[in-house]
């Protein structure tokens, strides 16, 4: 036995926990797809051949921070989980980040949007991988103004999240020289948006920014199409919308919608090849950017484990992840900033008209690419104690 270990081929056990929404409003954009993505990362990395035994577990946090916190504790304390990935819903993500830091493990977030994860509540154990609300507001707000659409009207969900999304986007629109003509705050959740849309229409703004999420956004877009708002020349801008939402809407209703994402399956050969393999295991569903982020994050984590040969010190693993440049077929070349923010290009997409689409999931055309350097909130003044 001693001889075997001395040979240096000591097998390492790594446990990865995929914690996300399995039954609620984020189940389609994260859910089982994230587990599949994590599994694909382990297989593509060929972990076993490199002497790393990976086990993947998963659980439903029901978008509740208390459930997420209990599960995370149990995983770290009893099940020896080394890495938690995904975790949509900002409040749940912040709870898991805190526990991960306390237990000195690793947390790679793909599903949540809050910039707090790399701001005031940043941690040496957290990497925020896929997107955040600032990047979405920047992509949709800033980039659209540059294309000439410079008058805005906001349709805002009347709670903290909607207000934050509106004010972030408003700052970026005005910063880029645009003008905000007005806003209407709708109750959450809403069912009928026609009267709010009519108010947006009569404002004459070129862009109607949808500062809401999930079913509210879907309903608003569906009804905007019905009332002929997009056909009359106003554009809709989704500030938090995923390809699964577009799929739910159908192109007839969603056409012309502008949105920002960090990943689309049909970007290049690399994304297409991976997405085809993903779809095979997900009965045809193409991956969301959250799924892609889980894959890419787990892959990079395994590279860091291979390089350091040790997974016991979470902060050290994250430090190694920050030292190594990131590289994978889905997000290309990138890096992880000192505050834990993963940097890569973001893309502004427009949803295709039904006639331009060649089949299911052929939904986006690329409007512009926002280079990694300007895609995310600057680290200076972000409030992260790790860098100040």
């Amino acid at each position, binding site marked *: 036995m001693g001889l075997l270990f001395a040979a240096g081929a000591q097998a390492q056990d790594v446990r990865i926990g995929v914690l996300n929404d399995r039954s609620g409003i984020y189940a*389609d954009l994260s859910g089982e797809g994230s587990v599949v993505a994590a599994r694909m990362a382990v297989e593509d990395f060929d972990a076993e051949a490199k002497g790393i035994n990976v086990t993947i577990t998963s659980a439903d946090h029901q978008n509740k921070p208390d459930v997420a916190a209990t599960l995370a504790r149990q995983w770290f304390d009893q099940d020896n989980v080394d890495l938690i990935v995904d975790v949509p819903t900002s409040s749940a993500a912040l709870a898991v980040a805190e526990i991960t830091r306390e237990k000195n493990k690793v947390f790679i977030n793909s599903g949540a949007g809050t910039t707090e994860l790399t701001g005031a509540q940043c941690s040496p154990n957290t990497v925020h991988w896929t997107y955040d609300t600032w990047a979405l507001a920047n992509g949709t707000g800033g980039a659209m103004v540059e294309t000439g659409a410079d008058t805005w009207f906001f349709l805002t969900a009347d709670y903290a999240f909607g207000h934050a999304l509106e004010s972030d986007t408003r700052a970026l629109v005005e910063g880029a020289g645009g003008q905000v003509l007005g806003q209407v705050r709708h*109750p959450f959740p809403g069912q009928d948006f026609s*009267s709010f849309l*009519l108010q947006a229409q009569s404002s004459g703004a070129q862009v109607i920014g949808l500062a809401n999420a999930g079913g509210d956004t879907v*309903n608003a877009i*569906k009804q905007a199409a*019905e009332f*002929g708002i997009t056909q009359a020349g106003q554009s809709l801008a989704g500030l938090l919308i995923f390809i699964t939402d577009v799929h*739910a809407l*159908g192109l007839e209703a969603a056409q012309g919608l502008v949105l920002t994402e960090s990943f689309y399956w049909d970007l290049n050969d690399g994304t297409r090849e991976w997405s085809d393999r993903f779809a095979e295991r997900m009965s045809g569903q193409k991956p969301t950017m959250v799924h892609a982020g889980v894959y890419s994050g787990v892959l990079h984590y395994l590279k860091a484990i291979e390089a350091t040969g040790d997974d016991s010190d979470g902060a050290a693993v994250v430090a190694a992840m920050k030292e190594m440049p990131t590289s994978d077929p889905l997000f290309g070349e990138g890096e992880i900033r000192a505050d834990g923010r993963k940097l890569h290009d973001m893309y502004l997409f427009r949803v295709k008209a039904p006639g331009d689409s060649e089949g299911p999931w052929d939904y986006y055309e690329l409007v512009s690419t926002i280079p990694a350097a300007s895609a995310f909130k600057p680290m200076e003044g972000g409030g992260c104690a790790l860098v100040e």
Partner: protein
Amino acid sequence: MFELLGIPPQALFGQLLLGLINGSFYAILSLGLAVIFGLLNIINFAHGAQYMMGAFLAWMLLHYLGIGYWWALILVPVIVGAFGVVIERLMLSRLYKLDHLYGLLLTFGIALIIQGLFRNAYGISGMPYSIPSQLAGGQNLGFMFLPNYRAWVVVFSLVVCLGTWFMIEKTRLGAYLRAATENPTLVGAFGINVPRMITLTYGFGVALAALAGVLAAPVYSVNPNMGADLIIVVFAVVVIGGMGSILGAIITGFGLGLVEGLTRVFYPEASSVVIFVIMAIVLLVKPAGLFGRA
């Protein structure tokens, strides 16, 4: 042109019309609830789930069998209504002698199970369903753009609501039904099959919910939670109108749609609360509801 409280009249007319359209969904849903409560004394908490089933079934007919909107309008209420009949025969019929609470708990449980099953099978994001081509487009009324489909919804629901009211209040069948609720033993003694009538009434109420679901499919997001979001408002409508009052449910449904529409113009943040404020006031002043008998 004159302005009313800073709102141009064109905008006001537009919002009133939109309120009427929403009111027609409230009316048709609360009508089903009122029929079931009035004649069975069951508080049907599964109404929202049955509305959702209606919308989903319309989608399924189109997606799997290529059957379009117009056929769905007929087939879906029949199928979901039959489902209601089965529920009534197997479960609800055992509860009539017990307190209201048991019926409420049972139907609430059924609603949760149905929603869970649909969520498991179809996910949460929802399904696309287009407006039928005959009703696409709209009319420019000068003060607003009225989609043809919305106009159809208002007219169609008015016809359904008034038809139902007429059947229950003015026909022989309706008279039997009302008599059977008052005194089932006596009506049974005249040779009328009371249990069967009750069963069919529940099926009819459920079919109304499913019909509203089909009407909603092209304009609202078709997802497993769509009914859960709406049902609470609809219950408030029924309470305001007076539990079990058919005409009350119809008039309050349309009326509250209008009130909600106005609130959206003057103070949008309150538009989801206004119905409940009215409900609280009505309960204080007239506990049996506007059209209810104390």
